[in-house]
């Protein structure tokens, strides 16, 4: 924590290509991070219809990518390449030049790396490792000893420097961060089997009968020459992936793989249920994941400066509310983003309401996730009726949640059931008798006017 940033300058190493020379020295960073932020996150349903998962709001004023980015700067990693592909606009504007995370640097800092056209062939990023392979030049520019691979969809606080020390101590070629999970859940993860020195002897992808409970967190440190070689050797591999191809390749070649056990808070917010749960956990009196600690701050691009206003008729308990919101109704057990308006007589319970959304008067909102810039008209009731599974995508829209995509409009006095999804500018005609039954999906093209 609060480390000296590792900018190294050395005499040129003639063997390397793509080095950046400055007079008689070259730029060198001991470790740089590559953040995979290109995934769609289709299990978040309408929430990721227009934005990549890392750019989805979290905890009121944050976005999911703020957590790995803040971890980077707090760990002293000041060079981060962010690999984008799916719907990158929101992500690009959020990251900008990296000012909120102190990643606007003369040398290094944050760089957004979308797929690009090449003289011989051009392709999208077909897999996690393929995305890194296509950016070999970027990594070589910084001449690193180690490369940290991160994914942009986890909520956690972690000191990557401690992991790097572990990597160095063990003279490892690759270190995989793992965390113990309950044995009965282990079959959902990539499982690492280790010896007494934490060296990985075997691994299994989503095993039916797990032999260990150490689940891979999708965070890797590689010694760069090892990774570089593996990427080049596997460059012809279709959809080259870290878990499926690179790690097995390294293992087969007898590289030293180690598991770094992490015991803090870590949450994959890949599904609507886990996303909702992780948000709700922030509300506890002393949350396991505490945003109020001075140590290890989470940074974000704040666009709302003003304070929030709570009216004389409101009642607010067990909630977190972000700046610039105006609350005239009652809010219980909810996470409210910045610039949100909640009208008089409205009751919001167990819900997540994101930035700049407007909830009208006399509404009832129960267990809903409402994305950014949504307009919910007066008298709307969300989250009533029976808990019937969603008819089209029961795996995505479950947990009894109402999910509303960004820029949607809901006309007055509409009633909406559970396990439902709404997106787009809806009209009263879209609802039979003014009701969207539990389990229905209503996705319309076009934004709110």
């Amino acid at each position, binding site marked *: 924590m609060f480390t000296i940033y590792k900018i190294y300058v050395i005499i040129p190493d003639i063997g390397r290509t793509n080095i950046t020379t400055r007079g008689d020295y070259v730029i060198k960073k001991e470790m740089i991070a590559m953040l995979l932020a290109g995934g769609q996150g289709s299990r978040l349903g309408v929430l990721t219809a227009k934005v990549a998962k890392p750019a989805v709001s979290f*905890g*009121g*004023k944050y976005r999911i990518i703020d957590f790995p980015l803040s971890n980077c700067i707090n760990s002293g990693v000041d060079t981060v390449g962010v690999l984008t592909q799916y719907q990158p606009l929101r992500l690009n504007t959020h990251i900008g030049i990296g*000012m*909120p995370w102190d990643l606007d640097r003369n040398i290094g800092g944050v760089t957004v790396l979308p797929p690009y056209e090449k003289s011989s062939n051009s392709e999208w990023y077909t897999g996690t490792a393929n995305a890194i392979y296509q950016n070999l030049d970027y990594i070589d520019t910084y001449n690193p000893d180690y490369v940290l691979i991160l994914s942009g969809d986890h909520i956690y606080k972690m000191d990557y420097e401690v992991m790097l020390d572990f990597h160095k101590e063990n003279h490892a070629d690759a270190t995989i961060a793992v965390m113990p999970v309950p044995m009965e859940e282990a079959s959902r993860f990539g499982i690492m089997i280790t010896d007494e020195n934490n060296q990985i002897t075997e691994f299994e992808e989503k095993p039916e009968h797990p032999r260990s409970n150490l689940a891979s967190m999708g965070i890797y440190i590689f010694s760069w020459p090892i990774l570089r070689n593996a990427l080049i050797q596997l460059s012809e591999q279709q959809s080259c992936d870290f878990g499926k191809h690179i790690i097995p390749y390294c293992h087969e070649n007898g590289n030293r793989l180690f598991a770094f056990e992490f015991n803090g808070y870590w949450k994959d917010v890949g599904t609507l249920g886990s996303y909702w749960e992780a948000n709700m956990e922030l*509300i506890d*009196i002393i949350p396991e994941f505490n*945003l*109020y600690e*001075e140590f290890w*701050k*989470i*940074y*974000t691009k*704040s666009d709302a*400066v*003003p*304070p*929030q*206003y*709570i*009216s*004389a*008729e*409101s*009642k*607010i*308990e*067990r*909630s*977190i*509310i*972000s*700046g*610039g919101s*105006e609350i005239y109704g009652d*809010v219980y057990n909810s*996470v*409210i983003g*910045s610039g949100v308006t909640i009208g008089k007589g409205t009751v919001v319970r167990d819900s997540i309401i994101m930035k700049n959304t407007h909830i009208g008067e006399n509404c009832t909102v129960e267990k809903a996730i409402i994305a950014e810039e949504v307009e919910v008209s007066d008298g709307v009731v969300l989250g009533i009726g029976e808990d019937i599974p969603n008819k089209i995508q029961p795996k995505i829209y479950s947990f009894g949640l109402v999910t509303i995509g960004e820029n949607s409009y809901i006309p007055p006095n509409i009633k909406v059931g559970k396990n439902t999804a709404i997106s787009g500018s809806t009209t009263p005609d879209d609802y039979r008798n003014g009701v969207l039954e539990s389990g229905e999906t209503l996705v319309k093209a076009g934004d709110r006017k």
Partner: protein
Amino acid sequence: MRAIGIVLAGGSNHRMRELSNQRAVAAMPVAGSYRGIDFALSNMSNSHIQRVAVLTQYNARSLNEHLSSSKWWDFGRKQGGLYLFTPTITSENSSWYRGTADSIYQNLDWLKNSHEPYVVLASGDAVYKMDYNKVLEYHIDKKADITVVCKDIPAGTDVSRFGVVRVDDEGRIMEFEEKPVETKDSVISCGIYVIRRRQLIELIEKCAQEDRYDFVRDILIRYKNLKRIYAYKTTDYWNSISSVESYYATNMDFLKADVRKYFFKTYPDVYSKVLDLPPAKYNPGADVKNSLVSSGCIVNGTVENSVLFKKVFVGNNCVIKNSIILNEVYIGDNTYIENCIVESRDTIRANSRYVGENGIKIVVEKNERYVL
């Protein structure tokens, strides 16, 4: 751009009582998330004035910290920037700023090295939104030498801390009285001036030669017949925060929906330094009514008709009424606070009671705090 800006933020003020022991008035926190000077600076930025000097002298540490980066107000461009001028010892001069005119005189080189034809002078202790270009257009239109922004005030208001003007039908200022005890007039100066840069340099230099140091007394009042001084009337919200009573009233104004709409939701925005604070948190037992709450607050008790600034902690069973709690105050359990302004970084012990009888009480409690 046609103008440069100067923000006068130097003064101390005995009307602020204990509050000014800590900081210059321009650095006073306002409306939950802002500081006094944010309004003048945001107005400058939003009026496309890109070169702005802030003249500070009294207790400027807090202000300097707030202005440590100019990016929040979108200054710090290739052309222009934010300049912070505190008095320095030079070969010709080794005194403090002896007045507003003197503070400009001591930084006259900056004024001379600029090339913009006009100067907007503003003070850092008022809460308002203004497009200075409109004042400038009026200034050019009237062929004025100096334009003073003025405001009508209701009859019977205490004017003893304002400059009071009498204006003829055309808008020209006939009479200018500084801080009168009593007056028949009901137009006050807002302390915002537009003047041609060369004119200002000439007046300031002449003033200095005569050992005069105050812009209002020695320039505006002395030259009122010689120069064409015009009043630009504003009808928008404007309030000075230079006394405890007006500071309290201005903060409480933000509990009104129209004032909040005007400052928070209407273009253009008011900017401030952004701290990385989490959203405000309401725990079981929180009961907040008609109040402003800023980022980083944790509320466990009752808060009514009050303004909580950033990072305030309100303990269990606390009752806070009609009060202003400044930044980073920790309030222990079972405390009762009414009609008070609680100074920044105070630590209020549990089971305390502070009530402002006859007016506003200022609470300064520098108890030791153990931070985990």
